[in-house]
């Protein structure tokens, strides 16, 4: 937060090369986006922090046209496979229709400004955009 920015979620690392990070179970390699006391896969209790690659493949998606009040639609929600780790995210910087968003398409992490609060801190969100 020192440079006046704050990420949308803890696991988004900002800076020169924005990326996502996970807690990796030392015993079995399972990945978690939140803090864990113990691993849900093997009960291990030791974790290290690992950076995920910024590029991956869109393994599934939906185009949400009807959402809760206050949520702007349409938007593309999906799951991106980042080198074997599944990540939930929006697909951004693309027309939200089935001609432009396709299963298996290559995507990369992209960040965007969510605005600045009263203290002058800028929030930064993330999504994945088509590679080409």
């Amino acid at each position, binding site marked *: 937060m020192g440079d006046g920015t704050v990420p949308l*979620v*803890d696991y988004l690392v900002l800076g020169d090369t924005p990326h996502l990070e996970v807690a990796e179970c030392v015993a079995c390699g399972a990945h978690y986006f939140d803090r864990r006391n113990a691993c849900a896969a093997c009960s291990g209790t030791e974790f290290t922090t690992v950076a995920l690659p910024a590029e991956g493949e869109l393994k*599934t998606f*939906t185009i*949400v046209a009807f*959402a809760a009040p206050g*949520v702007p639609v349409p938007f593309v*929600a999906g799951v991106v496979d980042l080198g074997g780790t599944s990540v939930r995210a929006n697909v951004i910087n693309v027309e939200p229709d089935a001609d432009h968003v396709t299963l298996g398409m290559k995507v990369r992490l992209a960040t965007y400004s969510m*605005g600045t*609060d009263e203290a002058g801190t800028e929030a930064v969100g993330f999504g994945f955009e088509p590679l080409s």
Partner: protein
Amino acid sequence: MFNVANACATGATALRTAIMAIRAGECDTGLAVGVEKLSGAGLLAGGSRKEDAANWTPSGRYGAIAAIDGRVGTETMPGVFAQIGMEYGHRYGGTSFELFARISEKNHAHSTLNPLAAYSKRFTLEEIMGDLMIAYPNTRPMCSANCDGAAAAVVVSGAKLKTLSLEQQRRAVKVSASVLTSDPWEEGCQVLPNVNTLTRNAASQAYELAGVGPEDLDLVELHDCFATAELVHYDNLGLCPEGGAVDFFQSGATWRDGSTPVNVSGGLESKGHPIAATGIANIWEVATHLRGEAGDRQIEGATVGLAHVIGLGSACGVHILERSAA
């Protein structure tokens, strides 16, 4: 008296609770009731987004500084289950908007024979694809019908059954398997709910317990909370070879005149999905066919049927029922 709440698996859980009490010898008769008042409840998940706070303050499991529904994917059920069907398409190929819409077309056609269905009108493929888009590829008629509903089942021990009237014994249906599973941790299961593994586990346990296989089933009521969900459960319940759900559906197998009729009630998309009642309503549907009392929609000569539900969180209930020998 137990009150149970297990999301969309509530009814199946109530029935299984009664069955377990009888098996344990605690009683010889049980009544499982599922009731839901759902009209107008809307999306059920992904609550309204409030104004962002005056100051960005991290909170919650992910240290989020603002609401994440709509910013980090979707939490709404039509969108979650859309992704579950699309993921199957990514893995095995062959899916399309039209394919998923055709599944819905089948269930809406089936319900025209069911006087208790929420919708009893047939929708054409064009009407389904042209209806209000909720979460691609699920349009409104491809989503479960929000409705009120109730269903009940009486279960008795074998010894108790022998004391009942011959007519009651004739109408009795045998519970050959009653299974409830939870999902093990697997990669990605906390990113997108995995409704596959626990259904596969429940199905294989149920077939083993009942001594029947998927090829023996005369009808199946499965959890088509969305058209995209029905497709994956053909595979999860072993109705088709692994990866073969698209071909299986396109063969016509799951229409009421096919080899494995699926959701002849109209399913959740058309009969409706009163959540806590669903896991007993599907038991009633199967039992009604096994008794030969399903009227115009009777599957002739039905002797074995399967009922399946999924409750996110996750729980999967599978019951296999057989016509009484009496």
